[in-house]
């Protein structure tokens, strides 16, 4: 076991992927010489050369579109989108090409493209640097969408994503790049938990709390805080947002009867809506209360000094838990 930051774990995962398969190429803005604005690709260009770790012109459609061509040629491109809010110029290539080419070619063409996206807020950044665009991609057939939350998963999941023959949108919780954790650098991918499977990171009896990315830690903290009040929260780290590992959530909700889903993205049409709807479909008779969503507001990401009012934090998650439990909460007495 080695202690690594989440960012460094990704770096090591990428290094391993580059070493293991010479069809793997990294593409992005500032990922080579600079090593990425978050240094996730630090040292990789020096180690593998400029044809494996490629600084590209400044164009997201260009990066994703040439990655499609490279995939056509048999490469496994790993694309870095510098910040969440800059993925939209590449949206057409992602939605109309990356997601659909396998289908369009009746299985002949594979798109083993990994699109890495540092996502989420909480770092006091300027506009477009704190977004959570994951729901756009979970609604897009043909894509897989995952989010890592800790160094150990980061190290394994990035390699799984690259090894996957399906395109993967890979979300990295940017405000946790610097958080350290234990990583087993020698564990084999074969033994690892598949990236499509969720992890129950805290067991509990009273309510199931589902989240992903940076909020996993907040959810764990909430579980700890709630335990002091005698409320037992089961925390599930989703890891895969498309497909969702419903088996894990369902088993939990059948025991707890209550579900809270938390994410930074807006509520309207967010991942929480899908999970709430799906779990209601699957577990209606087991639910003792409506699933609760604790999310960012349906507003553009606000200026940095307001972000603590936008992002779900421990208090807001506990308020959501209270709602799920029918305990006094912010909406007590509110109709509808």
């Amino acid at each position, binding site marked *: 076991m080695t202690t690594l930051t989440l960012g460094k774990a990704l770096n090591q995962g990428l290094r391993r992927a580059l070493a293991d398969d010479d069809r793997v190429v990294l593409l992005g803005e500032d990922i080579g010489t600079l090593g990425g604005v978050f240094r996730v690709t630090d040292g990789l260009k020096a180690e593998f050369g400029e044809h494996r770790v490629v600084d590209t012109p400044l164009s997201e459609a260009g990066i994703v*579109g040439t990655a499609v*061509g490279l995939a056509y040629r048999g490469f496994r491109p790993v694309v870095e989108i510098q910040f969440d809010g800059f993925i939209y*110029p590449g949206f057409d*290539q992602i939605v109309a090409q990356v997601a659909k080419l396998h289908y369009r070619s009746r299985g002949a063409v594979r798109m083993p493209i990994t699109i890495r996206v540092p996502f989420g807020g909480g770092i006091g950044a300027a506009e477009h640097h704190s977004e959570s665009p994951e729901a756009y991609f979970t609604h897009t057939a043909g894509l897989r969408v995952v989010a890592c939350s800790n160094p150990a998963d980061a190290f394994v999941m990035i390699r799984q994503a690259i090894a996957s023959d399906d395109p993967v949108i890979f979300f990295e919780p940017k405000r946790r790049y610097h958080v350290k954790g234990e990583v087993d650098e020698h564990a084999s991918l074969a033994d690892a938990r598949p990236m499509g499977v969720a992890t129950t990171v805290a067991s509990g009896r009273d309510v199931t709390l589902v989240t992903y990315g940076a909020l996993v830690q907040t959810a764990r903290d909430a579980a700890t805080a709630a335990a002091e009040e005698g409320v037992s929260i089961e925390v599930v780290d989703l890891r895969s947002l498309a497909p969702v590992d419903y088996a894990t959530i369902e088993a939990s909700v059948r025991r707890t009867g209550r579900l809270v889903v938390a994410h930074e993205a807006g509520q309207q049409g967010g991942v929480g809506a899908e999970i709430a709807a799906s779990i209601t479909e699957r577990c209606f008779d087991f639910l003792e209360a409506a699933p609760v969503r604790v999310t960012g507001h349906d507003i553009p990401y606000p200026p940095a000094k307001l972000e603590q009012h936008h992002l779900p934090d421990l208090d807001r998650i506990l308020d959501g838990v209270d709602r799920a439990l029918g305990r006094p909460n912010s909406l007590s007495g509110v109709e509808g």
Partner: protein
Amino acid sequence: MTPSDREATGLLTRPDDLVQLLGPTGERHASAEYDPWVADVDDDALVDLHRDMVVVRRLDSEATALQRQGELGLWPPLAGQEAAQIGSATALRADDFAFTSYREHAVAWLRGVRPDELLSVWRGSAASGWNPFEKNMAVPQIIIGAQALHATGWAMGAKWEGTDAAAVAYFGDGATSEGDVNEALVFAASFAAPVVFFCQNNGWAISEPVGLQSHQPLARRADGFGMPGIRVDGNDVLAVLAVTRWALDRARRGEGPAFIEAVTYRMGPHTTADDPKRYRTDDDLAAWRERDPITRLRAHLAARGLDADALDADAKAAADRAAAELRAGLVSIPDPEPMSAFDHVYAEPNSHLDRQRDHYARYLAMFDDAEAAAADAAGTGAAASDPRGGAR
């Protein structure tokens, strides 16, 4: 730059640096620069080019007719663009890769795409017709311009692998306004990628004349991006062949991308769903009939002393054969199985979609069950088969 420029296709007939090896009446223009690139093109090769153009024009008109008969959902005719497509695709090597739009049936033909493979997508029977790796040609692209980036990426990869294969990106005049095409030029130049951008300027993007996209010959776009731009008479199959070979050869030698504007004309509608009478006059079309690429090569061959009637007969026979194959191919296209809608969304198992597929299979089975039940009950398979009624 008055509004009327925006409404014009006059740009097409501007003489600026148009490369031409065959004049309008088939006369051969010498070119120190480009003659070497077609020095090997003898009578036989010219006859082949002529035959290919006749064949693809026939395939095109047959397909248009099939659409009118309801056998195809849609067809985007290539009529008028035979020389641009046959000339350029003839220049390709087997290991080169063509990334086209939706109108490059002649390119497909030369890449060995079978009639059934060509038609199935337009019949609505399949998402696409052929395996790109069998023909080294991508399946058709409908998002305007997107394939220019794919070609560039492929070319970057081919170069990094150390091969001398090249990619060709086919797109239209309208496509030059899309970001993707311009970004492809940026990437191709930056990486000196072996890719040839082959723009068929056929004067129109549906109803919009090229003057609305640009007041400048499109080939001039290239220089600013750092690559040569060549404007070629797109109805002169020999010139198209020559400039494409030149560009491919450069690319193979590591000198990077080039941009070819083949000036041609879309003689037919944009697609069979389009009515060009709403936006262009017959005069415009008539002028371009004079520049017919097939007539021109035929005149040239006649001038070289070949027997034009024999030529016609040979080409017609080939076209008849191809047309027969096309119709046979059409008939051989199977209707897709309902559950195949779920195939190839993912290359790997997907818990969500697999479950959704099972549910739908179960839904469909309800109808079979209902039919069976009704048949049992009535002693006939033809009875009412409402599965919901049946299931109750």
